[in-house]
């Protein structure tokens, strides 16, 4: 899929662990892992909003389009 998830990069920049983020935004670690690994087929606006709020970033920092 040409949509790349840069969540791990943002987590490293903010020095936050996956477990902590999952607790903050209220999703399971397995779902966060699906999102990080790029296996997710869709992301809800509410989840994206929660991630952006927790990591103090913009959606473009997490999602990237790369023409393959």
């Amino acid at each position: 899929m040409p949509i790349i998830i840069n969540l791990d990069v943002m987590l490293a920049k903010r020095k936050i662990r996956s477990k902590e983020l999952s607790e903050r935004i209220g999703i399971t670690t397995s779902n966060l892992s699906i999102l990080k690994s790029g296996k997710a087929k869709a992301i809800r606006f509410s989840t994206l909003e929660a991630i952006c709020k927790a990591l103090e970033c913009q959606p473009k920092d997490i999602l990237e389009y790369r023409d393959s």
Partner: protein
Amino acid sequence: MQINSSMKKSFLFKSLVDYLYILNVGGFLLLLTTISFGFVEINVIKGGDEHWSLLAISISCISVLTCIVFLRGVYYLRKMARHLLIHKYFSKQIIKCLKISGTHFLLAGVMFVVIMILGWIGKLREGLFEFVYDINLMVPLFLMIIGLFFMIQSEALLVAKNFKEENELTV
């Protein structure tokens, strides 16, 4: 409560399909044995000929083939019922088995129609024109309907499976 009720239905369905399969396989084997040992006389041979006519041979061969195709359809239905028992409604196996079973039932129905037409031609050749309206007329029709329904159901399950996967992978 819902799961318990569905489990009971699946179990009943599996049992009924099992009985149907066992009875049909048993009956088919018994028929083959009795015919090959000459224990029964077949009504198809009329007119006192010692040898079978080409039409009678064709009808017999297609009948045996129809029976085998039907049995294969029931076999795959049985396989599908086994997967139903473990609540894998959207598994690849159920979709595949349902499609194969449906195709076989449809084919068996078409072959049944061919047998009826051949029988009708045979009677016409004897100078007898008859149209019998009975339950036998409904059997191929019902088989074809069930076969097509299973095929449609299999496609619907495939669409549902894709939706389910997409829903599960939505974060």
